[in-house]
């Protein structure tokens, strides 16, 4: 009862502050989507469409009150919107339309909301607030889970989190991947936060959060978590500046995991080496084979939940129907066909290439150094998604799409800051351009004037 009232107050605080600053409503949607207060409340919030109210409020407040400094229409935005349209089109020939439309309902909203986020999340404060919202919303799940793992050691299939059932964050593979993706973001926030006072204690707090996220991932006993953890360690090592110190920390964490982990965890992880002898791993291989066979005859995909009509045959002769894909790649390929997979991989590739470029561009600029740090954190998180996700079917869950949205927001932020550099005017401009490239002075002056004209309408206040 008290828990429900408390959560209702938090929900209302998003609405009230959203009236003053519309981007808070977008953060509220992320909070509702990640934390899912309606799933842990006993009254009020579980009886009203909390996500719908917050989503409509976020959209309406942006279009009515907050259309300042819009970002450019970029390739990832086009790819994301195209993905939203394509998943709708594939429902025209969906093999299992009744179940498919249920998945379409939340997947379509996730995709389109990620295209909307860069419109609202523009400044450094807003970008950081978005990252903080993601980490703290997830913390509601992994803080108790991690503490319970410290006490009991965790276990495969043991639901130690907030939610019941076997979907969303109650599913071990999904929870472990989301937690591992949050680790680099939490460490980034510890180093660069503006919203929380910067001190050693705050940094330690974020390190503690990252530690609990790691414990949660390990405590699920998911093999995909180990794959994601290795990818995360390697990628963060590659991107770190102080490789010796980071390598020592990594070795310490590795030794701690080996020393502390139980024999049950070790025997569970050992099955990775013998996939044909283990039922779960063998099922994955068989369902992936079925997907490739299905796509050979249905290249445009079978719509959402097409796995319900899958048929796999084990070497023992046992035939099983309706096994899930257990992989983001085969999930997208089977459901959305080659077009969907191309869009998905295109977004992932764009994110990596752009974030690497951003990190290179900003790492030596003092007031943009945080952008380089965040680029590396987002890359590390995406590396987890693309490796651990190869064994978990979470292609349309919000994590991947939020990371893409944060990447777009960050890139657009850097573009606007760089564009705003005070350009030399008048004879100084002519002199500097003549020195740099003789004959280009007039073009540069024209570009500067065009830039000034563009910034004048881009930065005007929206009506309201």
């Amino acid at each position: 009862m008290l828990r429900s009232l408390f959560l209702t107050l938090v929900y209302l605080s998003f609405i009230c502050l959203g009236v003053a600053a519309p981007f808070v409503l977008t953060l509220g949607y992320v909070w509702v989507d990640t934390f899912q207060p309606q799933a842990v409340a006993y009254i009020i919030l579980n009886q009203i469409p909390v996500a719908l109210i917050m989503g409509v409020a976020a959209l309406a407040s942006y279009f009515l009150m907050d259309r300042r400094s819009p970002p450019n229409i970029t390739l990832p935005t086009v790819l994301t919107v195209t993905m939203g349209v394509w998943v709708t089109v594939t429902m025209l020939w969906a093999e299992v339309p009744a179940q498919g439309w249920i998945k379409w309902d939340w997947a379509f909203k996730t995709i389109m909301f990620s295209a909307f986020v860069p419109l609202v999340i523009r400044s450094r404060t807003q970008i950081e607030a978005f990252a903080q919202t993601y980490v703290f919303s997830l913390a509601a799940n992994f803080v108790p889970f991690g503490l319970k793992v410290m006490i009991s050691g965790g276990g495969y299939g043991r639901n130690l989190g907030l939610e019941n059932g076997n979907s969303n964050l109650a599913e071990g593979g999904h929870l472990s991947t989301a937690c591992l993706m949050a680790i680099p973001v939490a460490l980034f926030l510890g180093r660069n936060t503006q919203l929380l006072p910067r001190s050693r204690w705050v940094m330690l707090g974020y390190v503690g959060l990252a530690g609990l996220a790691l414990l949660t991932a390990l405590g699920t006993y998911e093999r995909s978590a180990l794959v994601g953890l290795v990818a995360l360690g390697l990628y963060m090592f590659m991107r770190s500046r102080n490789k010796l110190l980071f390598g020592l920390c990594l070795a310490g964490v590795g030794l701690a995991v080996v020393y502390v982990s139980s024999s049950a965890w070790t025997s569970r992880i050992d099955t990775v080496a013998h996939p044909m002898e283990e039922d779960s791993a063998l099922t994955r291989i068989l369902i992936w084979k079925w997907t490739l066979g299905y796509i050979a005859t249905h290249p445009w995909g079978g719509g959402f939940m097409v796995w319900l009509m899958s048929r796999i045959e084990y070497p023992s002769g046992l035939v099983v129907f309706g096994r899930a894909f257990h992989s983001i790649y085969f999930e997208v390929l089977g459901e959305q066909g080659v077009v969907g997979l191309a869009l998905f991989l295109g977004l992932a590739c764009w994110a990596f290439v752009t974030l690497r470029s951003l990190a290179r561009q900003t790492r030596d600029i003092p007031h943009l150094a945080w952008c380089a740090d965040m680029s590396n954190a987002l890359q590390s998180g995406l590396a987890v998604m693309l490796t651990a996700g190869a064994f978990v079917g979470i292609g349309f869950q919000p994590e991947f799409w939020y990371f893409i949205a944060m990447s777009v927001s960050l890139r657009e932020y850097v573009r606007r800051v760089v564009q705003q550099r005070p350009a030399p005017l008048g004879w100084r401009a002519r002199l500097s351009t003549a020195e740099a490239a003789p004959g280009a002075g007039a073009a540069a002056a024209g570009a500067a004037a065009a830039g000034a004209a563009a910034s004048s309408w881009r930065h005007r206040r929206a009506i309201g």
Partner: protein
Amino acid sequence: MLDLVGIVFSSVMMVYVIFRAVQLDRTRPWFETAAPDHVPGQEAAAAKPVRSRKRRTTGRTGWVRPVRPRGTHR
């Protein structure tokens, strides 16, 4: 009990973060305008040589042109 710890911690931090975000969003510039090569006090340092050069062109002999009064004076 531990579930409640997670919920309360997460919710309190969320409310604090959004409250601070609203505060900072109103007080700080959205896009930091400091140029990457900007050094504080650069303008003052750059202005000095210009002034001294002017003085030198008119004041090689130490004489400074008196300021001409504005108005109806021809």
